[in-house]
């Protein structure tokens, strides 16, 4: 009776010389949530694109209800009851929430688009998602998390038999994720089958019934979630042991006294009276929900945003930088959260990008731009950071996410910065590259630089940081030292702004 709703048999797909899928199999039982996990490049996205009818496989079969079907086009997939929520939002930012929910399927009344019908149709679903926003407002005014829920609502309105979610919670905060999961469980109760693609393993474990791990275009493991452990999954994903993911601290290189960055009572934007100190040789982690103010703090420390009051003392004795140019010249650097938008010039070469700071920001030296020097610079970082690129002349756009991030880091290493601000540097980076970035962060710290590191992934903060400072609604609410951190207490602090022992009863 539990014949799978959808089965994928020996799916193969090559792009040019690159094998994306190499005989992948998948059986998704009716009414279950089936997680597909794997590194970037494992074939997840290609699988999704094939199921969505966007890409055609070279070989293999898709069986829906036991019958072989061809997904020739996105329309065909939709007709067969397959709905996909993509990771990259496909909303029209200038149009209203309502208009976005009914793109191309606007209900008509007397030949005209009926807003009233749309309102009635969408009410229940928005309610269920807990999305309480002005549905007449343009989508661009919503937070990314809310936009993601709009996207989900749009797909749910088509009442799919099979719902495919591609990293649906990458932009959601804890509450939004919880709400999303509640909705997904409810949908499962109604008999909807789901494929859930993610690389956040904790969440995969929280929501799925069965887990398939893909690696190099093959399914290497499929198991029930019960009895499965995260280390086992990570093992399968990378084919190595997870202990190696977080490198141990390196012995500090002895070179002079420790330097210090002191932040004194900084307020501005949502931030209120932030005060802390960070020393060279330590990695200070920053955690907080969306809106807690971590990006703002980094922006103030880097001279992008102005502090309303308060100040700081940098290792060079100066205060808060007044501009990014001043920051760069004083050896302060920021690796921004959205590397494509804020860190890279995508239509330029690796060589061009790595010279961004050394040539673009610094003063002194020759007014000439030497391509030979730029090439030396690029080759140095390509070798040092192991950036995978055909040549320094390759466009950054053609690099994978992890390698792009290394370019962003590399451009700063060229000026040997004293203070390094890393705003969620591993977002959207595959595990192999993550591990390399961790090594790099450790090395930067051991070289005596002051490293401030923010992340949305707890294991990363715990595995890497000497101390973790938690921001909640613009206030610094706690500091947890690396060794005695426990996941639950840190989560509690991030989500409530209070340490659990203040409300010991509420926790249990």
């Amino acid at each position, binding site marked *: 009776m539990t014949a799978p709703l959808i089965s994928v048999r020996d799916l193969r797909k090559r792009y040019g010389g690159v094998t994306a899928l190499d005989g992948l199999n998948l059986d998704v039982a009716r009414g279950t949530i089936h997680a597909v996990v794997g590194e970037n*490049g*494992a074939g*997840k996205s290609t699988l999704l694109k094939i199921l969505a009818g966007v890409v055609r496989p070279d070989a293999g079969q898709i069986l829906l209800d036991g019958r072989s079907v061809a997904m020739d086009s996105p329309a065909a997939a939709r007709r067969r009851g397959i709905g996909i929520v993509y990771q990259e939002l496909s909303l029209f930012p200038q149009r209203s929430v309502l208009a976005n929910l009914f793109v191309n399927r606007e209900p008509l009344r007397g030949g005209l688009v009926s807003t009233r019908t749309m309102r009635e149709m969408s009410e229940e679903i928005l309610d269920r998602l807990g999305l309480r926003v002005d549905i007449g407002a343009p989508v661009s005014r919503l937070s990314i998390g809310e936009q993601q829920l709009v996207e989900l609502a749009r797909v749910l309105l088509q009442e799919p038999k099979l719902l495919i979610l591609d990293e649906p919670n990458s932009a959601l905060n804890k509450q939004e994720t919880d709400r999303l999961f509640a909705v997904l469980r409810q949908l499962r109760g109604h008999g909807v089958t789901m494929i859930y693609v993610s690389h956040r393993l904790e969440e995969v474990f929280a929501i799925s019934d069965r887990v398939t791990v893909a690696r190099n275009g093959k399914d290497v493991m499929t198991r029930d979630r019960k009895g499965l452990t995260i280390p086992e999954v990570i093992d399968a994903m990378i084919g190595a042991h997870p202990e190696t993911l977080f490198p141990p601290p390196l012995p500090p290189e002895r070179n002079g006294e420790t330097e210090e960055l002191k932040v004194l009572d900084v307020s501005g934007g949502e931030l209120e009276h932030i005060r802390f100190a960070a020393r060279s040789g330590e990695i200070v982690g920053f955690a907080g929900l969306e809106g807690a103010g971590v990006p703002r703090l980094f922006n103030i420390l880097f001279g992008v945003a102005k502090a309303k009051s308060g100040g700081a003392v940098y290792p060079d004795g100066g205060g808060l930088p007044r501009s990014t140019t001043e920051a760069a*010249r004083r050896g302060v650097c920021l690796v921004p959260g959205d590397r494509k938008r804020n860190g*890279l010039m995508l239509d330029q070469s690796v060589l*061009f990008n790595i010279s*961004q700071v050394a040539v*673009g920001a610094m003063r002194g030296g020759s007014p000439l*731009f030497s391509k030979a020097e730029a090439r030396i610079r690029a080759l140095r970082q390509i070798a040092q950071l192991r950036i995978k690129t055909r*040549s320094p002349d390759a466009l950054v756009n053609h690099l994978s996410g992890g390698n792009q991030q290394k370019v962003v880091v590399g451009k700063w290493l060229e000026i040997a910065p004293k203070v390094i601000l890393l705003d969620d540097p591993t977002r959207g980076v595959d595990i192999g590259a993550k591990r390399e970035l961790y090594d790099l962060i450790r090395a930067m710290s051991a070289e005596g630089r002051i490293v401030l590191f923010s992340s949305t992934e707890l294991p990363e903060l715990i595995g890497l940081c000497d101390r973790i400072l938690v921001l909640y609604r613009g206030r610094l609410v706690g500091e947890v030292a690396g060794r005695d951190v426990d996941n639950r207490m840190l989560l509690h602090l991030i989500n409530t702004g209070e340490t659990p022992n203040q409300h010991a009863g509420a926790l249990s």
Partner: protein
Amino acid sequence: MTQVDRSSRDAAASSPAGRAASSWRLPEETGVLVALIVMIAVIGFAKPRFLNPINLFTVLGNTTFQGMLALGMVYLLAIREIDLSVGWMFNFSAVVAALLMVAGLDPWLAMLCGVAFGALLGFVNGLLVITLRLPTIIVTLGTFSMFEGLSLVTNNGRPINPPDPTGSYFTLISAKLFGVLPVVAIVFFALAFLLHILLHWTRFGYRVQAVGSNPEAAMLAGIPNSLVRLQTLVLMGAISGLSGSLYVGFRGAIDPQEGSDFVLTVVAAVIIGGTPLSGGFGTVWGAMIGMLIIQVIASGIIFFGIDATWSTFVTGAVIIVAVVLDQLVRYQRQRRANAQRRWDG
């Protein structure tokens, strides 16, 4: 583990040989240069008189003044902006230089003043752009008319004719070497060379392309965006001033409306030359060739005995064709790159 192995091997394998193979490409300008030569050849085949050096060099001389503006406009497009006021900066600077000559200033000094005055106008544009945080196209839409108005006030709506057009300035600027090659064309060429070096081999040029490529990322890399914008607009102003002052020396007068219709031709030349509107890259040589293409069309049409007004139409058509061809080349290149690129998930 496969990841790591592969990446280290690739990093090691980015050998000099591999680089050499990928880094040698035909220059960006090859396409437009071939187009220009083909165009001259076709017209010359039909009307051999067109190939007479005197005629060809006249074509070159005619391109000079707008051509110089186009060279500067390359920087504007490279930084993802457009300066609409160039024509009136040209005119106003010329008027000021001519009036200084009328007032008895040495014409050579007056020319330098014209350049400085153009730079000042560019500085005004730049200050407005960075203090009001507006796109250059908006600010210069306003200063276009402001400069026009001020220029007309200054010259009372009449042509300015500097005295003594037999002085060294006027004779040299309007001279032709060996009887054919206009001196201004040599200046044009030299300026193109300088601006090419400035764009591709200096820190300033690097910054222009960086800001044009991604202003946000440039700012977050510590590049002083506002300063770079200001410098670019001052440069544009100074080039307009130079072009205007030389024009006075070349023609011996400046008409009140001269330059009013320059901007569209100038931008067209830059685009035909291969500088994309999307910023981040510019080709000075391309703009020069683009200007020549426009001039060749204009004079070629006269040779065929077609009404000269048609040249405007043809220029427009050429812009469209140039942009479409450019898109096609880009698309092909993108496809090739995508095929080589490791599939990302």
